[in-house]
């Protein structure tokens, strides 16, 4: 099986709809960064990196007037220190992600989501990294402005299998992500909300902004099975002979309670919690998320 290419992962039609939305870091990270990113080291770096077109919200002081005189267009001069919002994508590759009752399963959806966000972040000039995990870290690509290709290849190689231990994995991410930044966790959150919350608290305590994309399949929410059958756990291989019609209602109650507990716990930790269903369009979900991020950034 060949690894998926950039083009496969980043649907051009999808990118066309979301490329005009800036990914704004919610917090000011430690670095030499200007513009919308509030940085404690703002202006310390004078190493010119590139021009980029002016976008609403950019600092007017950074407009290159000479370039304006030549081209009659507004360009912003960017410096190396200006782009240092580190974004680390933490992708759950446990066996539970390998499930889908619709046209796309959770892992494929998550991989597209991470690829899109990484591309977007790259265009924003952010440093991007990737950590895949199951019961421990599987692969780690530290954040960098030049790691997009590595991330894409790592996404292509990733295969969902094994048992997942989300709290332990987040702890390991917190250990390796030493510089404060944005940690985007893409997972199906199959663990205790309290344990997940404790791990997220550690990330937050180290200065990271944390976003959690909770991927959901319709069957996970509704448990629509009809006849008695043997159910097999994708992660542990555990098999249970069940009669779904008898358990459906209680299962849905437990599921909703889990969702509520996650929302509550993440809210308490100051973590953005975004549930995404795999049968919902990916671009709509991203647009809503970015819109939410932008609005929250402006509030700050």
């Amino acid at each position, binding site marked *: 099986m060949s690894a998926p290419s950039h083009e496969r992962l980043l649907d051009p039609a999808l990118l066309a709809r979301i490329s005009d939305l800036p990914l704004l870091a919610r917090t000011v990270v430690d670095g030499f960064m200007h513009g919308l990113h509030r940085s404690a080291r703002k202006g310390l770096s004078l190493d010119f990196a590139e021009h980029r077109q002016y976008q609403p919200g950019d600092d007017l002081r950074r407009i290159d007037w000479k370039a304006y005189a030549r081209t009659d267009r507004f360009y912003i001069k960017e410096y190396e220190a200006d782009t240092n919002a580190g974004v680390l994508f933490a992708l759950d590759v446990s066996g539970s992600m*390998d499930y889908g009752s619709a046209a796309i399963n959770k892992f494929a959806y998550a991989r597209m989501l991470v690829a899109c966000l990484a591309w977007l972040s790259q265009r924003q000039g952010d440093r991007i990294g990737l950590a895949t995990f199951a019961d421990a870290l599987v692969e780690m690509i530290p954040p960098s402005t030049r790691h997009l290709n590595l991330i894409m290849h790592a996404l292509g190689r990733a295969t969902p299998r094994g048992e997942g231990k989300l709290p332990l994995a987040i702890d390991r991410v917190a250990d390796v992500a030493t510089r404060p930044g944005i940690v985007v966790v893409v997972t199906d959150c*199959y663990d205790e909300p309290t344990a997940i919350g404790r791990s997220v608290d550690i990330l937050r305590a180290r200065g990271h902004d944390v976003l959690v994309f909770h991927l959901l399949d319709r069957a996970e929410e509704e448990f629509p099975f009809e006849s008695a059958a043997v159910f097999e756990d*994708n992660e542990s291989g555990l098999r249970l002979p069940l009669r779904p019609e008898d358990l459906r209602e209680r*299962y849905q109650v437990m599921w909703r309670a889990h969702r509520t507990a996650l929302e509550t716990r993440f809210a308490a930790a100051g973590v953005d919690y975004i549930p995404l269903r795999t049968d919902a369009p990916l671009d709509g979900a991203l647009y809503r998320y970015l819109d939410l991020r932008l609005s929250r950034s402006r509030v700050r």
Partner: protein
Amino acid sequence: MGFLVPAFLAGLAALGIPLLMHLRDRNEETPTRFPSLMFLVRLPIRTSDRRKVTDWPLLLLRALAVALLVFAFSRPFVGNTAEMTADSRAQRVVIALDRSLSMGHGDTWAAAQDSARAVLDALGGDDQVALVLFDEEATIAQTWTRDRASVRALIEATRPVARGTGFGAALRVARSALISAPAGAPSITLITDLQRSGLTGVAGLELPAGLPLRTIVVGGDTRPNTSLRSVEARRVVSGERVQLQVQARVVTRDLAAGRPVTLSLRLAGRDAGTRTATLPASGELTVAFDAVPAPATVVDGVVSISGDALAADDTLRFTLPADDALTVLLVAADEVPREETLYFERALGIGRAPAVRVERRRPGTVDAAALSRAALVVFWDAAPPTGAAAAALGTWQANGGGVAVIVGPRLAERRSVVANVATPTGLADRRTAGGALLGEIRDEHPLFAPFRSTQAALVAPRFYRYARLDPAVGADVLARFDDGSPAILESRAGEGRTLLIALSPDARESDFPLQPAFLPLMRRVVLHGAGHESTPLWRRTGESWVPQAIRQDPVIAAPDGDLLRPGAGAGASRAAVILEQVGVYGAYEGRVEGAPRDRVAVNVGPAESDLTPADPTELLLGVGESTDSTFRGVTAATSIELESRQRLWRWLLAFVALLLLAETVIASQGWRGRARRATIVSPERSQA
């Protein structure tokens, strides 16, 4: 109602299989995958719920299929169990005992009797036995009985006979005995020296399927034997005397070493000479006796050698026919010159055994007295008589006399039907074309027997003028000229025959008399026309014999003195007699007095002297298996027969198949079919 194999009913425990499958309601092959069971494992899953039967119709269907399958394998039947099982216990043994001549070799017969007694001793109280004695033929000497003493007495009383061996006949008769066998476990026990020569006739034989055939081979591994294979005896002319010359051929097999042997010849009950020779260990030797004066009458002879382990084939009898000259009446008109019949008369005058004496007569002088001593009447270019003479000729011919008509120019011009065989239509003149040849010859006819290896001799003569003949209905054309005109025709007349010959024996009309084929063909015309075929010196046991010289009420005296009347009750004047015994059979007409009118010597076939044994598997090679319903009772204990008797299980199996088919349809339709469908999408598939 019972079960042939009730042990299979234990398979009813398999009913638990569909029940367990139903209760567990799981399919180990295709479980439903789910991301995580972390919530489900926390739910209290009641065991009673999991074991609750929810699809009673499907469960009952599966349970019924399993139960019927078990019943089918238990082989149910309707009837008495004891009766069914009793068949397989009682033995029904056919003892086929070889009593052919070869069984008299050394101690072979004693060993065979011991083996037969051992078979009897091994039988149980309910077992029954039948005894078949066989040589070339076979007879049921004892039908089914539990009385072993009577069978034992029969075995004791039986002795080898001077007959050959035929395993095919033995097995056929044994098979027929099995048809009437009481219910039980049948088998055939063959006690024999298993001579290879006896295997003839076994191929194609069918025995009931599954029937045990046990072969007990008696006799040693090496069976040395010396036998008289054949004798040649013929009269030879030495000066003015006729002498008898006898040669005997001796065959030896498997002797330890060559051995001297004395051969003796007795003729008409008197010693006629002895010869001493040294025989090879294996091979053959021809010994010629000194010629002795031969009487003209029938001569009975016996050649014998000093005895060995098998004495029965050390003597060979023969009967030399009397040197009776055949009388041929040559009927020719006065205008027929002597030169015209010269070649014909000279040709018949040459040769002996038999000699031919030609008696020339004018037309109209052939009366009953003349006919009584004639074997053949030849009409030389003249038509057979009419009126009273014709009646006498017809009677004589109906009793076996022969008529030959030489059709020449005189008859050809008359253009009237000749002897009801053909009508001359003119004379063919082929002188300008170099003469005619014989174009179509029925070489399989006895008339042309001397020419089968030299057919070119018959197409060499050239015929310049010959009569064209139009055959009558029923006439048989034996040869034609190259223009298609019949050359020789034959027609039956009672027991005699009529020959019409358009081949001119006149040297002026053809070169036929000057050709090599002339003499043998004319002699064959006489012998065949007179019904005088070659007579063998002896015949083999088992052959049939028709005395030639007896016309009415034949009485046959067998070698042991028994009188046989083969024609009695059959309404036939010339019925055959089967030659059962070794010796000389004499035939009389009406009553036994004086010398027999005909006689024949009978010996055992030479094949019986070849004691080479065959392997028992060779016997079985030619024997096939029969599923003939005639043997329904015979093969009662075999599995095939039992299955055919009890068809109930087959119906059960068919019904099970239908049930399983219905189960497949029901389980895959409606909510049952939808229930198990679940879509699992792999990452690769979703991206594609």
